[in-house]
């Protein structure tokens, strides 16, 4: 090739580049053909022009993609033609990455590229950051409220003015047994029980009227029983008040309810305990009363009688002497009976009397007791009759029922006049036997009847028709022992027409 041809070829190549023509092919391979024989300076010029074409082609391709907004292509290395655009490409890639971070919720990005655009963009990020902070604060507040409502032992609710549920907190499941969603499906009148809600509706209407007139928002508290989902009833304490909006307009009724069943049971147990203590105190008083008065009296009488018998004048007067001995015998019998009852009663109170029921013949038991009172009845010419069927068998504790029959017979004879009648009868009405001790004696007033069998009201009993004394302790024992048999004891009486004491005892095992 001539020098002119070489110059023309290179000029055409450079002109092509200046005209925007992209050429990726070399003009010549400098190591082959005609160029290889050219001087080194010419070969170097071809080499640089070839490299320029190559870099220009790379740059053109890169710039074309960049102009289309495509940043995926990595920029060509060691290409000085596009150095500023590589910086631009890098900055744009970083901005895309930052935008992706922002899209994922990272608002810590700060753009310092493209002047006014970056200022606006950073303001946008700041707004998003503030919004995120506000949302986070709201979320935390809601979370706290949710945790409070879920973990509160009290249930919080809101009713409209027709007492329909608008809201109920999840704690309702702990009180009612229903979830909040289930509660919202139920009429409040069912949930809180009809009686409770109807009772409070009128009161709430009154409170609403007062609020509208005076602005005073009164708190309404009440306790009531409501049905639990499991079927049992629970006690709740409810507090309600009007829920006004910020302008004072009533938007509903807010309330809270808590389960107070445990407290109620404790109160009931406390009342029972108080009752037990009162009885215990009355028992103690009665015990001391008997010791101090009822026992002291007869013992004192016996002491006086003994002193009288010791007098020489009395010992010579046989008739008076035996009369005094008979009086002493009566007093000692009464005192013995009292002591016997006192001992049994004391044991009963201590719980040291064993209850051992078995099958016994009731007729025989009554017969034995009647024989004990034969003399006492003869003294007052009273007819004693055992009307219990001979074959009557019951399932009872012998000692206890023996004490009951003895005390009731003793009382019947005591309050029956001369020539009177006392009888014991029994009617079997399975699984019990109803036993009655009937007399045609003086009878009792209603006031006296109502005080029988009670430890706190018994007082010195009415004196018998022959001056016999008593304490009322015997009837108390009867009551205690019949209770042990799961039976009843009752009295029918009318002044002047006698009395009938009836009690029931089992006639079979497991009555």
């Amino acid at each position, binding site marked *: 090739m001539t020098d002119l041809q070489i110059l023309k070829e290179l000029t055409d190549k450079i002109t092509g580049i200046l005209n925007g023509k992209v050429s990726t092919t070399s003009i010549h391979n400098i190591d082959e053909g005609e160029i290889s024989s050219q001087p080194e300076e010419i070969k170097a010029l071809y080499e640089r022009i070839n490299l320029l074409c190559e870099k220009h082609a790379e740059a053109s391709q890169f710039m074309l993609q960049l102009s289309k907004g495509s940043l995926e292509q990595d920029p060509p290395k*060691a290409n000085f033609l596009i150095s500023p655009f*590589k910086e631009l490409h*890098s900055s744009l890639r*970083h901005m895309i990455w930052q935008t992706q971070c922002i899209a994922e919720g990272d608002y810590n990005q700060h753009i310092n590229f493209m002047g006014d655009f970056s200022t606006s963009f950073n303001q946008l990020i700041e707004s998003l950051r503030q919004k995120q902070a506000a949302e986070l604060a709201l979320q935390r507040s809601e979370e706290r409220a949710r945790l409070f409502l879920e973990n509160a032992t009290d249930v919080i609710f809101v009713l409209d003015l027709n007492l329909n549920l608008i809201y109920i907190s999840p704690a309702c499941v702990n009180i009612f047994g229903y979830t909040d969603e289930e509660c919202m499906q139920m009429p409040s009148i069912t949930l809180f029980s009809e009686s409770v809600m109807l009772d409070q509706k009128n009161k709430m209407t009154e409170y609403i009227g007062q609020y509208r007139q005076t602005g005073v928002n009164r708190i309404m508290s009440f306790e009531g029983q409501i049905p639990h989902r499991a079927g049992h009833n629970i006690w709740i304490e409810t507090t309600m008040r009007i829920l006004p909006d910020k302008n004072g307009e009533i938007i509903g009724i807010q309330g809270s309810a808590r389960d107070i069943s445990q407290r109620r049971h404790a109160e009931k147990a406390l009342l029972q305990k108080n009752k037990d203590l009162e009885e215990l105190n009355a028992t103690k008083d009665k015990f001391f009363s008997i010791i101090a008065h009822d026992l002291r009296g007869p013992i004192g009488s016996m002491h006086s009688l003994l002193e009288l018998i010791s007098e020489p004048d009395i010992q010579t007067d046989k008739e008076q002497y035996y009369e005094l001995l008979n009086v002493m015998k009566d007093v000692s019998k009464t005192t013995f009976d009292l002591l016997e009852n006192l001992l049994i009663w004391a044991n009963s109170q201590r719980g040291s009397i064993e209850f051992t029921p078995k099958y016994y013949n009731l007729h025989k038991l009554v017969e034995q007791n009647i024989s004990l009172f034969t003399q006492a009845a003869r003294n007052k010419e009273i007819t004693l009759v055992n009307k219990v069927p001979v074959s009557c068998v019951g399932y009872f504790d012998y000692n206890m029922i023996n004490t009951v029959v003895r005390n009731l017979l003793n009382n019947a004879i005591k309050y029956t006049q001369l020539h009177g009648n006392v009888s014991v009868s029994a009617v079997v009405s399975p699984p019990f036997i109803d036993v009655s001790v009937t007399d045609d004696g003086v009878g009792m007033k209603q006031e006296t009847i109502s005080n029988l069998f009670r430890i706190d009201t018994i007082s010195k009993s009415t004196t018998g028709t022959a001056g016999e004394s008593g304490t009322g302790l015997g009837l108390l024992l009867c009551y205690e022992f019949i209770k042990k048999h799961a039976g009843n004891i009752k009295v029918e009486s009318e002044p002047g027409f006698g009395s009938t004491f009836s009690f029931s005892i089992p006639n079979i095992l497991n009555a």
Partner: protein
Amino acid sequence: MTKNDYNFKWDDIGDITLGRPNLGNQTSVAIYRLMQYTMRSVLSHELGGEASKKIFREAGKLAGREFCRNLLDTKLDFYAFVAQLQQTLEKLGMGILRVEKTDLQKLLFTFTVYEDLDCSGLPVTDETVCDYDEGFIAGIMSEYTSHEFNVTEIDCWSSGARVCRFEVVPAPKRCVQTKAFQ
């Protein structure tokens, strides 16, 4: 520090406030580069070009680990950690770090550094020179993620780009051969 087994500790930097009450904590970039490139020159002559580049890379890795351990909070999530790194590098005048790509699943990253302390404004020599930066970025990422990384500078001011671009990829796991002896 003249011992053969010297190991760098952060405290070896010393108390600059105490030691430089008048001149303070700042110096010129030119003086920093004077030290680095004279050292590179000597090392290159003494040990060869590749060996000197390796030494700078390893020194950078040690510096990156210590830098991360002492000046950065590694408990932050990735985006917050990058934000913190950007602020710290800028505040210390080391460069403006930007992120081009991240793949947190594969632990692949492309970082760029503008106004790099080591190279921005250097004469164009058609080769990358930020060996120390390669190690520095690898050290920071290793300390933060507990994974080893290889960092390669694919564009450098010296190679004609106006920005230094680094590709960060996980280092292949070392395969430890074991043999049982009976």
